[in-house]
């Protein structure tokens, strides 16, 4: 009799969720298309002047990316709840927080990473100065996992309800506003020639905290939701 190790369980879960995302890749592309469309519409609305666009570029990209991620958040545990996989996860002998952490990692890999990958393209569309681009990418790399983690806690709380989409948005938005302020703030500071490391370090600190606490909170919330 071979009792599966926790690392084997995490690998199995990561592989399954990545395969599932690949098989549903049409759905997985939605957030990416959403962000590109939103950003592409701004020059039409504001006019093509490079100066105007450059001033709003970082903030616009940040908002578009965060909203795009919010779109996909509701589905984080939904399908697992509907087909009973979530019960099997909860009943598995491995720490639920760790398994949920794996699911959050897959969410970030499949939603945020493509968004970060197209961020340089979006920056070009809005004439973001080239010197600010690295700051934008670092800020996104710190803020997007934060959103995945905070979002997972909120999704875990609301997954037991029907039509929880609106409630989820209301719960998540206030919690990610600081990430938006500091992330976009770092880009704006870099653009204006000021020091920008402090807001990035704040984001990093929050991310470190969320990495440890959010999976535990999500596991506790999920157990409440399931009862």
């Amino acid at each position, binding site marked *: *009799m*071979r*009792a*599966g190790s926790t690392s*084997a*369980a995490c*690998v*199995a*879960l990561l*592989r*399954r969720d990545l*395969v*599932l995302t690949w*098989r*549903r890749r049409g759905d997985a592309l939605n957030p990416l298309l959403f962000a590109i469309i939103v950003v592409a519409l701004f020059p039409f609305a504001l006019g093509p002047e490079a100066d105007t666009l450059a001033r709003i570029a970082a903030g616009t990209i940040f908002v578009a990316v965060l909203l795009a991620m919010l779109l996909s958040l509701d589905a984080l545990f939904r399908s697992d709840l*509907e*087909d*009973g*996989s979530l*019960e*099997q*996860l*909860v*009943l*598995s*002998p*491995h720490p*639920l927080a760790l398994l949920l952490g794996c699911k959050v990692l897959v969410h970030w890999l499949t939603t945020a990473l493509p968004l970060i990958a197209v961020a340089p393209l979006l920056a070009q569309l809005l004439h973001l100065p080239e010197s600010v681009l690295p700051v934008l990418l670092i800020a996104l790399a710190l803020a997007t996992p934060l959103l995945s983690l905070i979002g997972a806690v909120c999704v875990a709380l609301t997954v037991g309800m029907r039509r929880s989409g609106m409630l989820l948005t209301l719960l998540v938005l206030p919690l990610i506003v600081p990430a938006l302020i500091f992330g976009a703030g770092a880009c704006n500071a870099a653009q204006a020639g000021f020091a920008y490391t402090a807001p990035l370090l704040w984001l990093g600190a929050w991310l470190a905290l969320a990495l440890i606490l959010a999976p535990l909170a999500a596991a506790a919330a999920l*157990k409440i939701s*399931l*009862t």
Partner: protein
Amino acid sequence: MTHSPESEPAPLLQARALAYARNDEPIFGALEFALHPGEIVLIEGDNGSGKTTLLKLLSGLLEPTNGEVLLHGAPLTTARLSHQVALLGHLLGLKLELSTLENLRFAIGLGGLRSGITPQLALASVGLEGYEDQPLRTLSAGQRKRVALARLLLVPAALWLLDEPYANLDREGIELVNRLLDNHARRGGAALITSHGAYAFTSGTPRRIALRPGTGNTEHGTGAPAA
């Protein structure tokens, strides 16, 4: 309550004064029963009498309002469930986008593997030879149920909690479930299965526990555990 001498090992699963109420409305009254290795117990009750709720209590997904569940003589916590309980609910916990083999491999990763069996063997023993690479979406409801039964064979759980295992199955499938239960009992495992009575457990004379709303349980049949 059955009073057991000191020499006799603690039952695999024991319910003591187990009661559950939803919104102060009692679903079922105080239940007293013990399940020993090698026993198959059938829980009978009408629709809405709390059969599924009982299985969720016994698996640790729900907290009882009163009383306690003992696993090997110690109180049940999800952490202690490790590799001991396998739940097959109304929701099978299988992914439609994955093939039967991929679904089973994930279950093994999560729950471990019983010695002396492979996913292919398990599929063959539930009559699904040749369906290894079929996506679950293309299988019928009964065939999906058989895949879930194959999962039970693979994971090293001594206690099976089966919610309506006969639903969706043809006559041959019902015989298959009975055969699997028989083999499981002979290996020293135990199973608790629910049924609303329309399908008969044919082999042997299983103990029956009848659930009546708001009251305790009544036991029929031979309750003597095979020591």
